[in-house]
């Protein structure tokens, strides 16, 4: 009994520290969102009010519509980036081909080059093809910062992948789809979760690209949030920030078990 306690204790402590560390920054936000008057020397707000929250959930604030846009865009970006990242990651991780280093560099380039610079050029192109002021254009432009991470994570898992497992399944009678469904997918599933998490969160927090390509028509949460930041209403900004952070946090918690350090899915980062 005592031995179990001893081995458990450090772990529980570390876990508690992490929870506190992650959640502590939200306490001021929470307090701000319900404060009515909170002036400098006082530690806590002098009076409380639900005004900010009432406003946030009123139709006038358009928060729900922004939440809808953000979710739609992030989910589409996640799906699309995995659809592209899967074959790209497999090619980069598994096969040798000429110009592989160049391709790897090109895929990583968006993490080095300021996306805004690229987006300015793309903007002109998007206008020509009618991809501005709509969700499709925003989704496509989000792929620029998202794809490098997705491809990197997936090429990492394919670098440690043994294609003989697929060959084995094939001689046992598995069709191409069955090999993907019953061999590839279960093997790379943790990496797929991590890549999806990155894609979702990166898309979720885009501001400038959305503003530029969405042209004020696609109002996602960050776009809405910034308009309140500049308005100077701290309570509403705080409430909105919490609405902004909550889904991303939920998504993170749902996939956190795939983020542990010993996952092969994170191998890609070792290669950077």
């Amino acid at each position, binding site marked *: 009994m005592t031995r179990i306690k001893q081995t458990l204790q450090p772990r529980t402590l570390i876990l508690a520290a992490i929870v506190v560390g992650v959640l502590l920054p939200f306490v001021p936000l929470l307090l701000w969102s319900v404060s009515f008057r909170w002036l400098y020397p006082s530690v806590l707000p002098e009076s409380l009010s639900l005004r900010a929250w009432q406003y946030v959930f009123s139709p006038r604030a358009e928060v729900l519509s922004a939440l809808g846009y953000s979710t739609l865009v992030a989910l589409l970006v996640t799906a699309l980036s995995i659809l592209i990242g899967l074959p790209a990651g497999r090619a980069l991780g598994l096969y040798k081909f000429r110009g592989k280093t160049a391709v790897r560099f090109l895929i990583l380039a968006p993490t080095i080059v300021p996306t805004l610079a690229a987006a300015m050029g793309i903007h002109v192109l998007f206008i020509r093809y009618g991809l501005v002021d709509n969700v499709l254009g925003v989704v496509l432009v989000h792929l620029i910062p998202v794809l490098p991470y997705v491809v990197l994570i997936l090429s990492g898992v394919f670098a440690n992948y043994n294609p003989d497992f697929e060959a084995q399944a094939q001689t046992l*009678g*598995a069709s191409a789809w069955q090999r993907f469904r019953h061999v590839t997918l279960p093997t790379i599933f943790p990496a797929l979760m991590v890549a999806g998490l990155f894609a979702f969160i990166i898309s979720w927090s885009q501001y400038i690209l959305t503003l530029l390509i969405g042209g004020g028509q696609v109002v996602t949460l960050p776009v809405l949030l910034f308009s309140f930041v500049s308005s100077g209403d701290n309570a509403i900004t705080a409430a909105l920030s919490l609405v902004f952070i909550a889904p991303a946090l939920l998504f993170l918690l749902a996939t956190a078990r795939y983020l542990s350090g010993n996952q092969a899915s994170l191998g890609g980062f070792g290669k950077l």
Partner: protein
Amino acid sequence: MTKVELQQLSKQFGEVTAVSHVSLTAPDGRITALLGPSGCGKTTILKTIAGLLTPSSGDVLFNGRSILPIPAEKRNAVMVFQNHLLFPYLSVGENVGFGLKMRGVEAAVIRQKVEEHLAMVQLPGLANRRPNELSGGQQQRVALARALIVEPTVLLLDEPLSNLDAHLREEMRQLIRSLQRALNMTTIVVTHDQEEAVLLADQIGLMFDGKLAQVGPPSDFYERPSTRQVASFFGATNFLVGEKRGNVVETAVGSLQIAPNPIADGPVQLTIRPEHVQLVPADGRLPNQLCATVQEAIYAGTHTRLRLILGSDTALTLLTSPSAAKTVGVGTAVHLHLPPDHLWPLP
């Protein structure tokens, strides 16, 4: 019931020729061993039969019909890979039942067949374990059960014993033999170990550098090797250079009689296995008697290996019983008899 034929099979990987013009027939219901040193193209041939590789030229026939147009998943030629490749995210039972699940067989039927096949490889009741909870030998047997459950037309085994220790090897070898006999399944085994091939197979195809050197029953490789390389691979160490004329070969240590054989007259190398060289008392009545000096005696438990020198520089090795070897110390002169029907000429 399938006869497998390879016709002039070749496979290139870019510049590398892995397999070159191999023609071989694996008879129906028998075990054929593909034997050869590492990198000689054995796995490449197996994968080509399975359909995982496309040959550069040549053909693969099952019962006289080319199967090259048929994709691997439809050939029912099941390969068991060298490192068994059990799916780590599935239980042992799900691994064994994999092929049936791919064929859309009902779950209840699969469960029953999985139990049957686990029992067949002597692992009853382990269906719910994870592959990593099994020993190496058990994993190998699960991989075998996973292949057998789909009743393959051809079973392709790549080095099935290579990851096992000596004791487990023996067990696995007997299991493969008895299952193969019971199921009467055409089987092709790849191995680099000549002893394993001899113990396991009805027929051996020996390969060097992508080419087939000799095909035949195991005894042929001891009694009638086709080249010096084949003879050496099977442990022959004695080679005497000479000139063959009829049933007599002139060598540096004298003229030797040999049994009638189909090799053409001219320069040959005579080979005789160490176990066939006899120590005899000095009398003139036997043919092919030679004098030699003992250079070294190596005790190996069940036998002793004597290294001898004939004439100025011809070396010979012979195996004798340890008790017989006691009478001949290093440096003593001995008389040898090379029985004519064990002297085999190599071109």
